[in-house]
């Protein structure tokens, strides 16, 4: 850290102004983008970097994007050097050569100039509806090389000194199954960065170039100071966390993500040297994505007050050997990485940090069991639908039960899920069921989210890209004595009554069918015997926990329904007898 020169008031004002500008960019994006993935699910991020490509502000965006943007900014500088001019706008996606996180996320980057000198960079990263490749909707579970995953975009100038390169736009659109959406969304991304660039320029002009640069430097230092204080409050030591891959998309694998975290009092060193070598399928993680997942996990543990800027990330060192799952060699496929293995990376970090700071520990979130469905409508248009109705249960944390059915861990729940009505109006689907599961959540003083059960009739032939991460075995680990959530399940039923267990990953074309998905549950926090019996009773009455589980897992004995009166004497006796057995079960799970 250098000595700050911006006075504390100007720093406070400046940091708020940068945040405000990224939010304004986000508003432009939400309102103008055409595909629902942006407008409804906010699967994009707006961020602002300094002239050297360090991200200083990212108030708007999904958490798994939070630490990856700087790689892209710096790649623009590295690739174009002196050939970067006022009015140029860049686009990129490739994780191997262009600092991208994965191919579906396109990043549009506009350097901002003041008096002829570059003072900042504004960027928008957004998940496209379709980028070609072996499967509709950007996720090709059959990929074994990145070449199977869609168009790779190196760092390109899409706007040269104010003039849009229509030829590049045509090339990009031609490589998508949804060219109309791509064109509209690209316009929204360009509009959003243009708004951001103009506002940053105005702000920099008001402060003057030199004070503006100093402000950005000082914002990075401010981020570093805050996380330094949080790290200093943790004990020094070394802790190991791990999560399993389960499948490499083709067959079961024993591969694991393993992290050793060392706190030396000033830095968190996150060493993935014991993580296994890269896998065959697209569940490898690019280095930017790995770093982002680590930052996400650390910030979620330490608290939302940690600034999401690259100053803070100076205190988190990531060691990710090349050739492992968390930093694969070309041409390993890796499109799945922003969800898997991001999920496993976050879990591994949470397991390690949970030992360091039990009060801050986060239980694991269930992995998803749904698939993507794509196909042609009767009216002729192509659709890509994320089966997001049956999301998994989230893990519990101290003082909060897990969210019952929630967007991916990599978004920390920041995905807005569809309405059944909108879903049915938009796609050739009929939803028959979308309700919470019984006994899906991991028991604990704070219960894990229970997950949902979904039944959807897909009315026409369609293509299915599976991601049965949460099926088969429990995935949401319990912490501090809490139990893991239940496993998920995915079954296909055909109109003739036959049923079929789809593979965990893979792409298939099938006729009309019924999808039956039980999503996995989140892990519990703390000893279930310590859960307030009143809450256990409410869960039983609400049909989220069975009477049998109330007794066997929580040691709570209830009278008959519908009142389920708590038998206090019997509960006391049962809880006394069972004390200790829960801890043993947790140990067994974490191996």
């Amino acid at each position: 850290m250098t000595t700050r020169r911006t006075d504390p008031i100007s720093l406070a004002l400046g940091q708020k102004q940068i945040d405000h500008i990224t939010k304004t960019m986000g508003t432009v994006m939400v309102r103008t983008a055409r595909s629902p993935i942006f407008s409804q699910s906010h699967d994009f991020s707006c961020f602002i970097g300094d002239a050297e490509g360090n991200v200083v502000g990212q108030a708007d965006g999904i958490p798994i994007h939070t630490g990856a943007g700087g790689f892209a900014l710096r790649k623009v500088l590295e690739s174009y050097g002196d050939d970067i001019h006022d009015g140029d706008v860049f686009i990129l996606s490739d994780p191997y050569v262009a600092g991208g996180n994965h191919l579906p996320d396109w990043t549009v980057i506009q350097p901002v100039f003041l008096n002829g000198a570059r003072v900042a960079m504004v960027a928008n990263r957004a998940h496209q509806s379709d980028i070609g490749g072996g499967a509709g909707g950007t996720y090709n579970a059959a990929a074994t090389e990145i070449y199977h995953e869609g168009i790779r975009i190196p760092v390109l100038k899409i706007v040269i000194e104010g003039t849009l390169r229509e030829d590049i736009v045509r090339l990009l659109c031609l490589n998508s199954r949804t060219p109309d959406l791509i064109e509209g969304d690209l316009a929204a991304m360009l509009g959003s960065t243009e708004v951001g660039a103009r506002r940053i320029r105005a702000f920099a002009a008001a402060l003057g170039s030199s004070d503006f640069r100093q402000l950005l430097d000082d914002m990075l230092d401010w981020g570093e100071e805050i996380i330094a204080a949080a790290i200093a409050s943790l004990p020094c030591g070394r802790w190991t966390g791990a999560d399993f891959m389960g499948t490499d998309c083709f067959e079961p694998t024993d591969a694991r993500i393993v992290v050793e975290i060392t706190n030396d009092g000033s830095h968190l060193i996150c060493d993935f040297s014991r993580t296994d070598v890269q896998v065959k399928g697209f569940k490898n993680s690019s280095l930017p994505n790995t770093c982002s997942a680590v930052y996400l996990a650390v910030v979620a543990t330490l608290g939302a007050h940690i600034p999401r800027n690259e100053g803070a990330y100076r205190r988190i060192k990531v060691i990710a050997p090349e050739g492992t799952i968390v930093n694969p060699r070309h041409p390993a496929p890796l499109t799945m990485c922003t969800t898997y293995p991001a999920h496993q990376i976050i879990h591994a970090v949470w397991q390690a940090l949970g030992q360091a700071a039990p009060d801050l520990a986060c239980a694991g979130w269930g992995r998803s069991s749904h698939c993507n469905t794509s196909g042609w409508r009767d009216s002729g248009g192509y659709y890509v639908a994320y089966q997001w109705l049956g999301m998994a249960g989230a893990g519990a944390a101290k003082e909060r039960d897990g969210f019952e059915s929630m967007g991916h861990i990599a978004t920390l729940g920041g995905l807005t899920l569809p309405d059944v009505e909108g879903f049915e109006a938009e796609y050739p689907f009929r939803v028959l069921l979308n309700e919470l599961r019984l006994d899906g959540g991991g028991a604990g003083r704070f219960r894990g989210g229970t997950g949902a059960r979904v039944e959807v009739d897909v009315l026409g032939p369609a293509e299915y890209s599976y991601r049965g991460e949460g099926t088969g075995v429990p995935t949401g680990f319990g912490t501090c004595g809490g139990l893991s959530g239940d496993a998920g399940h995915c079954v296909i039923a055909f109109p003739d009554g036959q049923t079929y267990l789809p593979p965990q990953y893979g792409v298939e074309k099938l006729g009309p069918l019924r999808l039956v998905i039980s999503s996995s549950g989140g892990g519990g926090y703390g000893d279930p015997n310590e859960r307030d019996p009143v809450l256990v009773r409410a869960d039983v009455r609400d049909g989220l926990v069975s009477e049998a589980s109330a007794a066997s897992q929580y040691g709570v004995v209830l009278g008959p329904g519908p009142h389920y009166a708590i038998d206090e004497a019997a509960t006391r006796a049962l809880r006394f007898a069972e004390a200790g057995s829960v801890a043993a079960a947790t140990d067994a799970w974490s191996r």
Partner: protein
Amino acid sequence: MQYKIMNNRTDRAGWRIAIDVGGTFTDVVLVTSDGAVHASKSPSHPTDPAEGIMNALQAMAAGQHLSLGELLGRCDSVIHGSTVATNTVLEGKGASVGLLCTRGFRDTLTIRRGIRVNPWEHRAPHPEPMVPRYRRRPVAGRIDAGGLEIEPLGMRDVEAGLTFLLETGIEALAISFLHAYANNAHEVAARAMVSALAPDLPVFISSEIAPLIGEYVRTSSTVTAAYVSKRVVPYLTSLSRSLAGAGLHGRLHVMQSNGGLITLDEVARNPALLLLSGPAGGVGALRWIAEATERKRLITMEMGGTSCDLILFHDGHVDRTDALEVAGYHISIPSVDIHTVSAGGGSIARVDQGGVLTLGPDGAGSTPGPAAYGRGGRLATDTDAQLVLGRLAPGPFAGGAIHLDGGRAYAVVHDTVAAALKIDASKSADGIVRLQQQNLVHAVERVSIERGFDPRDFTLVAVGGAAALHAGSVARALGCSEVIIPRLAGVFCAFGMLHAPIRRDHVRTLSLQLEAATMPQLLRAMDDLQDDVREALRRQDLDVSKATFEKAIDLNYAGQQSAITVAFEGSAMEIRERFLSLHNALYGHVQKGSNPQLSAIRVAGLLAPPPVPVRIRRATAALAPAPRLRRDVWIGDRTQLGVPVFDGATLQPGHVIEGPCVIEEATTTILLEKGDRATIDLHDNYIVSTIAAAASSDRAVEAIA
């Protein structure tokens, strides 16, 4: 124009009273037939607001040398804005509600579409659903997205569900079935059955409460209506009886979130309509200010102790929205689009671990309040900073309700902020105030620039106790050249209610391409909807022949989540052009080759209020009186010595005051900087012209345009 109320009695004097009950004060404004306006503030009775109202009316009557019966007997109508619905939600003290929902979809309220405002705050749980899961009962029957029945309604399920719920002791019932916005036959049939079995149970159906696609918000809205009904309906009924018993022959009208009035019987059909009852009253006041001052474009900042409400008004219109969030619950009701930010006199300042000053979003409220209140507040607030800067003075504050302690203010700013920042208390206080101003600037940008308006074309209207200290610098930062501070600022919403029309908003989901060929279908749907509105007005004994109707449609490009509401006038082509020009203004581009599509249609029915014949005062020819005193005030970047402080009570229409100075009004304090000039107009408003810096918003506006 008069409210044409059938069975009108003729022995009244045409007076009107508006009552706005807030958390702290009950404001009453009386307009007599000669145009005289009388305002009063009395303490609210949080436990029995009706009692507070009767006391406030008693006081008003005494001020007119009348008995309460004489006062009420002269009134055509009493207009009431109430926070009872909002407080019921905030306090979690609503009815025990049961829900009948489509089988297979009991958990809409729990899953709540996963919406989280800040995902990083993942340790914060969702608010508890208003209806626990065991009180949500499934009913067989399906309507599809096109409105066709694909499975008949399970009447046995309705009966079984109701029986179960009655045994649990529910006090109100919500019914929300999938796709009821497209076809509500199942909801209507279920309600009929419930009413036959349990005639006294209040029942609310989603297709009447919020007939829009999207089962989460529709269900949440319906449940909220049922939840608040328990307190809203009895409260208003008993108030109405008390008023009648005390001599009111005119009617009780209630302020709705849409800025219009409604009668009691209609409130009972959807009590959630009252959720923004108080602040929506400001719209009427804006309309009056616009007329009185001949300004077309206004943005109000109503800033009190905890928050600031902003409303943008242009050419007679306010923006409207269906999407409300109250205490984390999502509710769709027709509302004035009020943007609320956590910025008030009580906003708390702290220094974070990185040595940076932060302000809010939490506030000290009125208890303990700012440290200067001497009620135990130990954290520095905006109000404390204003005292340190000499802009507020120690002593009586807010009409004498509070005594400000300057020593405490200085100590708290010094100890909790200045020491950590290693700068002096004045600079710290200036930092706090500048952060607050930045909050307000960002909030004004949200309601203007992000909706395609240039704030430089607007006059800021500062109301509420805390706004007039900030308004000048906010205006300068945005490039606005004018600020209006109405003398009636203290009773702004109550005064506004006197200008509110009776208003009824209906909306209906309709998916349709906008083209000449679909116009006949669209016109038919509009006529149907207008008939619904007309019927709703007729139910209130109103002369529908005097009603005017505003028709609009929601348009967007395929896939867009948000829609633009466009006036429904002219041909499909003209409407399309209107959409394109609005889209371009809002977003800076249009999508070539794509046709906009319809998502909803809207009809509003209005009956204009009788004009309030406000007396115009005569301008004085005299020079402004001398300042009451002079004191040292921080203005700009330093303390200026001997800045004049005027007593607002001595200023009259025609007086002109130049900055720098401070003007102390009974319920607010105005800061004028060097170059600012305030004139008091004939309607008793301060019209402040500022020298706008215009720097920052210049580019900001360009950016969107």
